[in-house]
């Protein structure tokens, strides 16, 4: 009797195993004849909540336009926007949900470097293409088959900042104030690499802890080193605090920072004091009439809520544009993958995207089997304190420093 029971149990287990495996073998995860499931993981509830909604807006508008204009090789995109809470643990839960429960083909955006690092093995194991934002060099160098970065990373932008300053004044004394984490350190490394390449050196460095808002000692360090320009690898509150400190010290020093600080609240926090503040970014300002920007505005007007988004002066449009760059890159990969869409053909499709024209919105997108970062190029913008907006002072260029 007992042996019989065991026999039935084993038979049941084998049948269950086979049935589960056969279901897996028959389909491509996230792809049907009519649909492609794509995920966008952004922060809708955590400390990065400010950045999540504009990115999601861009994804929704772009996907609505793609679906309305025939989809991709006959398939419509089923977009799943999931809250990743930006922290590594919450990002892991969100990634598991979209990969294992929703069964998406790819994650076209994930906000947060640490969270992105944490989910790379999960994506690789399940053959899910991942596009991380807040990306650092580690994502493409040495790289991973499943990770694509359609965004100029901090290292490249910091190199560009230093090269730009030195192009204007070859004897400029440059200092760096940076956040004491991987984001800030990558900025410092990029700035240092460019200084070395240009046969000079950074004359002062001042790290700060996350959350610092008093920059008196840091600015004093810069002043003592008699710098002509300060490269800031900081976030918005810190940049605003440094601008105010500069005014307080009545010191006319050039500040140049990264893309994360190029948002409307900078002017709300500092007013006209922001005038002359420069930043390096891959994205052109939304008020320009570049073809790429014009196209975005048209699509936003038709499929989104323009009054609340791109036509709203307080809207963080840089994040919208960042989201746009990501979904545009993913869709090009999907198109190139052809009708026979699966994770492997998507990788090949993305790797075959070459010099895709972004109409001046950001550097053109090029991937390759040995290049999973779309570009090293960026623009230089300068704040117009009176008009409360940024203007382009140097067009899209790649740094000469080896990347």
């Amino acid at each position, binding site marked *: 009797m007992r042996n019989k029971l065991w026999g039935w149990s084993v038979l049941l*287990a084998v049948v269950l195993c086979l049935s589960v495996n056969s279901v897996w073998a028959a389909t491509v995860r996230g792809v049907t004849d009519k649909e492609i499931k794509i995920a966008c993981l952004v922060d809708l509830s955590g400390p990065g909540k400010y950045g999540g909604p504009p990115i999601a807006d861009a994804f929704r508008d772009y996907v609505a336009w793609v679906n309305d204009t025939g989809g991709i090789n006959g398939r419509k995109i089923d977009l799943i926007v999931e809250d990743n809470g930006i922290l590594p643990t919450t990002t892991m839960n969100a990634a598991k949900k979209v990969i294992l*429960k929703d069964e998406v083909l790819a994650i076209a955006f994930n906000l947060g470097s640490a969270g992105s690092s944490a989910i790379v*093995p*999960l994506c690789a194991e399940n053959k899910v293409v991942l596009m991380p934002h807040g990306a650092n060099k580690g994502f493409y160098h040495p790289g991973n088959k499943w990770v694509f970065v359609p965004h100029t990373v901090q290292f490249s932008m910091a190199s560009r900042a230093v090269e730009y300053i030195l192009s204007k004044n070859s004897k400029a004394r440059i200092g760096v104030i940076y956040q004491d984490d991987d984001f800030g350190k990558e900025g410092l490394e990029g700035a240092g690499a460019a200084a070395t390449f240009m046969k000079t050196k950074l004359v002062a460095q001042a790290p700060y802890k996350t959350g610092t808002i008093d920059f008196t000692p840091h600015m004093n360090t810069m002043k003592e080193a008699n710098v002509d320009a300060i490269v800031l690898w900081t976030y918005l509150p810190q940049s605003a605090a440094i601008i105010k400190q500069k005014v307080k010290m009545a010191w006319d020093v050039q500040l140049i920072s990264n893309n994360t600080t190029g948002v409307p609240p900078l002017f709300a926090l500092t007013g006209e004091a922001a005038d002359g503040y420069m930043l390096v970014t891959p994205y052109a300002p939304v008020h320009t009439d570049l073809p790429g920007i014009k196209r975005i505005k048209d699509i936003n007007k038709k499929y989104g809520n323009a009054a609340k988004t791109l036509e709203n002066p307080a809207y963080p449009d840089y994040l919208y544009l960042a989201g746009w760059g990501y979904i545009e890159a993913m869709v090009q990969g999907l198109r190139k993958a052809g009708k026979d869409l699966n994770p492997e053909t998507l990788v090949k499709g993305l790797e075959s995207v070459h010099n895709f024209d972004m109409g001046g919105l950001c550097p053109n997108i090029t991937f390759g089997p040995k290049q999973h970062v779309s570009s090293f190029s960026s623009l230089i913008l300068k704040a117009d304190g009176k008009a409360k907006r940024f203007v382009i002072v140097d067009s899209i260029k790649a740094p000469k420093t080896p990347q």
Partner: protein
Amino acid sequence: MANFKVNYREDTALFQNLWVKSWLVIFIVTMLVLPFLLSRYQLSILDEMGIAVIGALGLNLLIGYTGQISLGHGAFVAIGAYTSGLLAGTLGVPFIISLPLSGMTAALLSLIVGVPSLRLKGLYLALGTLAFGFIIEYILFHWDLTRGDTGMAVPKIGTEGFFIETERQFFYLIMFFAAVATLVAKNLARTKIGRSFVAIRDRDIAAEAMGISLSKYKIMAFAVAAFYAGVAGSLMAYYQKWIVPGNFDITLSIAYIAMIVLGGMGTVLGSILGAILITGIPHAIVYLTDALRGTYPNLSNLIVDLKLGIFGLVIVLTLLLEPQGLVGIYRRIKVYWKTWPFKY
């Protein structure tokens, strides 16, 4: 069937009667069959719960049984995870060795808070352990070896030809260790060590007067709790295959405290129920939002906005309505059926 106990052995037995043994067999069979019935996503949630059970058991031995408050449990989980990451990733040490070593490293480092605990109590001890958690987090962020907030990779478990990599394989592995951890905790609680822990918790001066060495047992409680946390951290590292310091911040320590408070302090079952509840709430919210997304998209978005608030509300309501935790509810149900149809 009468349930009389006629000797001490019967009274202290882990599985005291046929009912308990039958339920245990049903539970084991269910756990063996479950991976074939559930989806990979559902299994991944159970894997997470299994790891949380191990960590919560350790903390309950420290707080619930010995009465020593700790806000640094997450730090010991981190120590376990990074020990495994470094041993396996850098030195190629196999899982079977790195797992116990991770527990032991955490236990050894627990002396840093264990020894001061001899002079600290209550809020002061809480602050001391909290500070320890921050120090560990700082080290993980800034030590070159741990590679900052980008984190580090942890290799797969196994050797050439056989690797543990699927959710199903991890389910069996994690549940095996969770079962061992539960049995050890159950056993420990009924030994001299466990009774000494309880005596210290109830009145340390009286315990000392009875001949219980406070220093020995307090340090032992910290070491045992840290060992459990280290093992949980090691399993988490191998399971996630990538560890970042952000996984082990203060919220992890708070989550563990919430597990044992909501589950039931000073009970093994409470640790298990609490770990299941706290790990399960975020996933339950995900299921809820998904279910509502099609019909009530606005309500679904509102739930995402209020996610943390809902999480907190569930905890507050549970504490208000059932101060003894989930174990209290379990006991009441048990008594109800035991005495049915009588009320008492």
